[in-house]
Structures are given as C-alpha cells and as structure tokens.
C-alpha cells in the first residue's frame, strides 16, 4: 500500500490526515485515487507533491510504489 498524507486544508477536504491506496501510482492515478474535493485542489499549480520526503520539481512525473509515502502540500503559512 501507498500512504497518502494530506497537509493543511487538504486534510479538511479529505476529511482525514492520511489514507492508504494500492500502488503503483502515477499523477493520473493519484488524481483518481483521492477524494474529488482534493483532486480539484491538485489541479492548482500551488499544491506540491513529495515522495518519501523529497519534493517533486515536476509533480506530473510522479511514480510511487507500495511502501512509499506521498505527501500533498498546499500553500504554506508559518510565522
């Protein structure tokens, strides 16, 4: 299984902080695997994707296997 981690408002939209989905996943199958409200947000350029703690420069190049962790990172705000 692949672990999805929803950060910030994506966790609200997914109504969960995490989810497990069957691998492998690419960008299109990720869009299909997440709740519709999350998929709509992923359409925005400002959501970043990290695989096993490494942020993807080109998120469309996503490939993940069972055992990987994919984090969905909406716009940040700290300080």
């Amino acid at each position, binding site marked *: 299984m692949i672990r999805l981690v929803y950060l910030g408002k994506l966790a*609200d939209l997914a109504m969960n902080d995490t989810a497990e989905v069957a691998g492998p996943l690419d960008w299109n199958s990720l869009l299909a695997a997440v709740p519709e409200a999350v998929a709509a947000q992923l359409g925005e350029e400002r959501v970043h994707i*990290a695989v*096993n*703690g490494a942020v993807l420069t080109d998120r469309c190049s996503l490939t993940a296997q069972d055992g990987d*962790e994919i984090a969905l990172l909406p716009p940040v*705000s*700290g*300080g």
Partner: protein
Amino acid sequence: MARLSLDNPRDVRLLDKGLSVGEALAAFSATYERAGAIASFLGKTRDDGGTQALELTHYEPLTLPGMERLADEARARFALDGVLVWHRVGVMTPPQPIVLVAAAAPHRRAAFDAVDFLMDHLKSASWLWKREKRGGEWRWIEPRADDHDALARWKAD
C-alpha cells in the same frame, strides 16, 4: 536560571510546548558572547479579540530539515556568528509565542538582515500550515500578497 544549551552555530527547533523568550535570548547572548550585534524577532499569536486559537501543522520529513537549510542559507548569505530559529507547532491560544529568531554577528546590519530574511522565509516558504479559530470556526491561512513581495526582495539580488 539554569543555562539552556544551544547548538552552535545554528540552533533550529520545532517546539510542541511554549518557549521562554528570556531564557532563549539569554542563552543565545551567552553562546555568542564575542558577537558585537544580536538581533531578534519574537512573533506571538495576536490577541486582537477575535482569535480564539491557532494551530500550526508540520510535515516531519520536510519541515525541520527545510528550516535547517534555511538557517544555513542565512549563514552563507550574511556574515554571522550564529543563528537561532525556533517555531512552535500544535495548538496555541493568544498570547503565546509562535516563532523566535535570533542572529549574532560582528555588525548590526548583518544581524538585522538575517533576522528579516529568516522571518520572510518562515512566513511563506517553510513547510508549515497555519489555521485560526475565530467565532468557533477554523480557517486555513494563506500567505498574503505582501508576504510574497517580502520574499521576492531576497531573490532580486
């Protein structure tokens, strides 16, 4: 008071409890006692009457390593003796400290600029997500346009 021990030349922390600004800055000043200039910034939840609570979420594999890289970038960019970058995570209520940044340097300008640089990047370029509770409702905060403008200053040169 018992002396807090800081990592030299950078002390970067994510804290899930309150922080004592007095203790932290006393320790920072002692750690860099030969530095001529120490600038600091403390950001607190603003008690403007409306904010009931604030929550900061982080993502373990990215947030702290990103802050450590940011601290190193400040050290590479300015002539510093050392830096401190502390950020709260979790739920907090006003008036509680959220962020404490300090820079020690031989000269004032470098210390000031480093703190400014670190704050601009923590605010809108670190892996942190902030939401606010007002009137019983939680709402996610996104950086404002002027936060992005502030960040762009550092990319121009």
